[in-house]
């Protein structure tokens, strides 16, 4: 190992420690790490620009713009009220349907936004029913992480994997959709079982739900129609982008630009809502991990993995799945996936094996692993923060008691699925 490799590893490790321990903000930590690599001249400006995956950044920014506009329409509240009224205010049915609804929405929109849009309506409904919102919120946050796993755009790790592995929207949906559907149903019914004692309400209270008027929730009907039309074309674009030869980022950013034009929303107000810290976090991580790849550290790691697994694809897939899940339960899955992507590519280069199952294992492990603990996914952390402000504390212990067993069950189901359908 040479000095350049040692410095690169040190910068990576120190950055990672700061990100994990949250001693300083994760974006600032990653930016400092990336800049340090430039300052000590391990890479130059040209390398840094080259390492940034513009497809990932484009999809993230494009979808953030679309979501910022859609959430102004009141669509989420409309759907939530409609669903709650559909089951006549029965909390044991609402919990299932809110979970499924969050998962479906999370498959197309980012998890944090989906959860943040579901929380207010859930709080109002649980207050009307005079029951704790925590069972519903747990169902939503866990389902959100599960739903996000099913598509290319559902969760940032998938956007990164799709971009680097050349896998499209349909590839994700066809390969991960079926197993995610199973995991989702198992999860929502398990959560209902876990919280069954807290889901009883007096009959009289259910009438308050029936008094809610879903039409009042729609803020701007014209904007809703425009947003849904554009979203439809964006999703259609995602289905066809590989066939048409476009990057997924082209689809997302084109949709965002068209929606900005036709919605007539104030561009300043919309762009403020983009999660710029997340975008800069990604950019900086790409630079750090790109450096590790350039200086040969990733290749060394890939060799170690091959030596350990002896090139056995089944063993490698299962190790990646479980290691990703367990690590993602405690660490930020974005830097983990950013590091694993070049490693998996390196395995292909060294061992020449079909690495497609490894991508699915990485995606399932990294996304579903987030359900293991309160710090496993951004949606969990944000939800706990918002709920605490509203007077409902979800502690690390509370979360792990429900989340960790569900995560283990999800990974068991994923293992069976991969072994039967992807590794035969």
């Amino acid at each position, binding site marked *: 190992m040479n000095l350049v490799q040692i410095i690169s590893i040190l910068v990576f490790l120190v950055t990672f420690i700061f990100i994990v321990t949250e001693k300083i903000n994760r974006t600032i930590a990653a930016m400092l790490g990336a800049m340090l690599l430039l300052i000590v001249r391990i890479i130059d400006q040209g390398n840094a620009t080259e390492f940034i995956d513009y497809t990932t950044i484009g999809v993230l920014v494009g979808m953030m713009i679309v979501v910022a506009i859609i959430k102004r329409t*009141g669509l989420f509240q409309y759907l939530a009220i409609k669903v709650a009224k559909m089951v006549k205010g029965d909390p044991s049915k609402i919990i299932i349907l809110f979970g499924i609804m969050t998962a479906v929405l999370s498959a197309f929109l980012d998890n944090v936004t989906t959860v*943040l849009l579901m929380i*207010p309506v859930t709080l109002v409904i649980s207050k009307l029913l005079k029951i704790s919102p925590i069972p519903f919120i747990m169902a939503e946050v866990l389902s959100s992480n599960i739903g996000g796993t099913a598509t290319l755009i559902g969760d940032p790790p998938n956007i990164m994997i799709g971009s680097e592995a050349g896998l499209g929207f349909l590839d994700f949906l066809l390969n991960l959709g079926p197993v995610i559907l199973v995991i989702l149903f198992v999860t929502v019914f398990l959560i209902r079982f876990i919280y069954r004692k807290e889901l009883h309400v007096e009959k009289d209270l259910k009438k308050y739900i029936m008094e809610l008027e879903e039409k009042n929730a729609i803020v701007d009907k014209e904007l809703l129609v425009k947003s849904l039309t554009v979203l439809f074309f964006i999703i259609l674009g995602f289905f066809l982008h590989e066939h048409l030869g476009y990057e997924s980022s082209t689809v997302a950013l084109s949709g965002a630009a068209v929606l900005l034009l036709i919605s007539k929303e*104030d561009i300043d107000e919309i762009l403020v809502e983009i999660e710029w810290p997340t975008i800069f976090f990604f950019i900086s991580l790409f630079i750090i991990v790109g450096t590790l790849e350039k200086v040969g550290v990733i290749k060394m790691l890939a060799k170690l993995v091959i030596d350990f697994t002896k090139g056995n694809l089944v063993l490698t897939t299962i190790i990646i799945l479980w290691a990703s899940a367990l690590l993602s339960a405690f660490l930020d899955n974005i830097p983990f996936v950013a590091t694993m992507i070049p490693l998996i590519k390196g395995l292909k280069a060294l061992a020449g094996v079909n690495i497609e199952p490894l991508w699915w294992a990485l995606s399932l492990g990294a996304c579903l692993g987030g359900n293991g603990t309160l710090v496993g996914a951004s949606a969990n952390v944000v939800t706990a923060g*918002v709920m605490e*402000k509203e007077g409902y504390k979800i502690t690390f212990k509370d979360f792990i008691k429900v989340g960790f067993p569900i995560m283990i069950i999800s990974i068991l189901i994923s293992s069976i699925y991969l072994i039967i359908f992807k590794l035969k």
Partner: protein
Amino acid sequence: MKQINVKETMHEMLLRQMGANVVCFLGKQCFVKFNINGYEVSYAYNINAKEKYFLQRVKPYPMIAGVFEDLRDVVNMIQIDVEQFKNVIESGKFEKFLELNKKILDTARNLEDLFLYYIVDEEVFDEISKEIEKVREKIHECAAPEKRVYFKKDPETL
């Protein structure tokens, strides 16, 4: 920011379910504080891109100062208000003025509670109105042109 968004959405939902039309602007809330001879004079106003600025005096007693279309008008309004408070404070009669003002504000609240919570005979309306008219007449009497001390802006109600 995320917490504010959640609160905003929740409150909006409740208000919309009540049949209200809710419009939220992205903007900033500004608090302006002066210390004039130990008295706090403060204001609150918001800045947004919708060209309407709502200014409110918070201390020494709350009062809506108006809706302005230009931020310069907000600053002018505050400048004049502060100058006037300086004059009153330096006159040495500020404590008495504050006391009187508090009584008027409390009376307005009492009146509201009376009509919102009790059945009130119609004669009471007339009686209270007569008393208030007396106070107003007294105020108008005192506002004689020769006693005026501030000329940068005309009084709005006298």
